[in-house]
């Protein structure tokens, strides 16, 4: 690893654009870390509103309940780094719109809730946006079990963060620490990829 001052790292990261598919526990927390680190542009897509139950683990505040997540997240990210670009798409992501929304991103973060949506996104990005690295989050429900959370590189375009086994359900919900750990594993992978780029 090259030794660099933080000002140089920020300067480097500012050149890049990162896509975030979903603005829930993974997406909102990952976006916050990328904003703090200096990534220049985030392209964030989500269709949902902030609900009271989201406050347990997502990067939103009580006074934002009822707002669109994309709008609320943009507001919060701008409070961290006013000069960054936050492009928001308030829409349901599908096979049809994913390619155009994330076309010019240098890396894409998969931050959906439902497994079938994750599968759709991975298949679409890998087929339609060939060559863009995708960081998937899978397996983060519950608490503890930190030692089984892992980062795997499948190949140059596909990486996975999580334990690949803890499925979230009503009786086995995601909690802030574990979701944030995985969200930050994803952010860490994004930074690793961007720092290798010139």
């Amino acid at each position: 690893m090259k030794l660099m001052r933080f000002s140089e790292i920020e300067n480097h990261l500012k050149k890049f654009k990162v896509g975030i598919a979903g603005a829930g526990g993974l997406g909102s927390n990952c976006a916050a870390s990328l904003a703090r680190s200096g990534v220049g542009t985030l392209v964030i897509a989500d269709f949902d509103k902030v609900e009271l139950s989201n406050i347990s683990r997502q990067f939103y505040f009580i006074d934002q309940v009822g707002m669109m997540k994309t709008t609320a997240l943009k507001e919060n990210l701008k409070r961290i780094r006013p000069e960054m670009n936050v492009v928001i798409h308030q829409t349901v992501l599908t096979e049809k719109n994913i390619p155009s929304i994330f076309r010019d991103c240098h890396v894409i973060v998969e931050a959906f809730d439902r497994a079938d949506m994750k599968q759709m996104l991975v298949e679409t990005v890998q087929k339609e946006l060939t060559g863009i690295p995708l960081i998937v989050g899978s397996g983060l429900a519950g608490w503890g079990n930190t030692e089984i959370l892992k980062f795997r590189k499948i190949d140059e375009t596909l990486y996975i963060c999580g334990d690949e086994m803890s499925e979230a359900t009503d009786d086995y919900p995601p909690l802030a620490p574990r979701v944030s750990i995985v969200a930050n594993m994803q952010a860490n992978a994004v930074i690793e990829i961007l720092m290798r780029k010139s």
Partner: protein
Amino acid sequence: MKILLNNREEEFERDVMTVSQMLELKKFTFRMRIIKINGELISKEKYDFAEIQDGDNVQMLYLMSGG
């Protein structure tokens, strides 16, 4: 046949198999997954037809709800 399954060598008593057959033989029951054979993503509609051959590098990842 010998294949590389998630970087581990695995042996099967046949010369060729489809993705669906491999999942059945290995008793992989998770519903949502991504499979790549030699770096090429196999979409779920193709599991019954896509063939795995001797020496192939098969990568599989599991998708769990939550995020």
